């Protein structure tokens, strides 16, 4: 059975980077595909890869990770841009969506600028 779990950004925004990575990683280890509202910071993404590599073994083959992020509209007002920047700095980035899942379940995530296609191994 395939389990998808949605995590709203409010659930991770007050966590430290370490806590965020642990939360997401633990869900993936439970063989769940996580749909996270927003995205991790670049440093958190690379730490997640590092943690994944440390845990790869006989049963755990790694993760698939994909973030899709809408481009900000060109006509966005300066004040709006500044507001978004401050919010992102304080609480993290809630725009876009991140998919993280175990490599034993996700065969491939194909992505182009505007869409994600997720192929699973589950029949």
């Amino acid at each position, binding site marked *: 059975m395939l389990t998808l779990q949605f995590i709203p950004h409010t659930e991770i925004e007050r966590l430290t980077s370490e806590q965020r990575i642990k939360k997401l990683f633990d869900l993936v280890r439970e063989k769940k595909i996580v749909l996270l509202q927003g995205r991790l*910071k*670049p*440093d958190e*993404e*690379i730490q997640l*890869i*590092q943690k*994944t*590599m*440390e845990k*790869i073994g006989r049963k755990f*083959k*790694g*993760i*698939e*990770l*994909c*973030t899709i992020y809408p481009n900000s509209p060109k006509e966005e007002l300066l004040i709006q841009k500044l507001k978004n920047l401050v919010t992102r700095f304080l609480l993290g980035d809630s725009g876009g969506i991140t998919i993280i899942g175990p*490599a034993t379940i996700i065969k491939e*995530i*194909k*992505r*182009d*600028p505007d869409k994600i296609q997720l192929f699973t191994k589950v029949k």
Partner: protein
Amino acid sequence: MITTIKGFFENFNSFMLNFFKKKKQLRIGLYGPPNSGKTSIANKICVDWIGEEMGKVSAIAHETREVKEKQSIRIDHGRKHLLFNLVDTPGIATRIDYEDFLKHNLKEQEAKKRAKEATKGVIEAIKWLDNMDCVLVVLDSTENPYSQVNITIIGNLAAREIPVLVIANKIDLKKSSIKKVESAFPQYKVIGVSALKGKNFNELYGEIFRLMK
């Protein structure tokens, strides 16, 4: 007494010179996903400027499983020269399955060993990110450039304010598309090369100069 003071200043001068010389040695890293041709590019650069190769290449992914550094490579471009250490890193991946290596006729034990070493290699490559002065991100131009690994590598380099040059390798292949790579990373200079055929390396050296100066 005068000799002692003179000796002290000479030693001090030589210490300071060595200190700044060491500080000035730049590190240029090759990063990218597995099998994008990082070692082939490292080999071509090393053969061109120091006459010897850097590492072994293979069609099987994760051939490079340890960070390798070639010291003091001097490249000339017109009347200028650049002295740097070249660092070849293992390909960064989010999944490593020993069973993938079995498809390349590796024995099970060998495949498991390769997978274990590959995971350590990825961790090592990530740790080395902070030691780089400039990074050449090597992508296979026949593959979809929008993979998360590429985006994560470039995002981390941007966050660390490390200068980046994107290399679209394998331009000798029919499926290659430099345009796709350019549209995926519009904020970076993309240069197409073929490490296999040695194509476009003069342009690559020119771009490295522009990036470092």
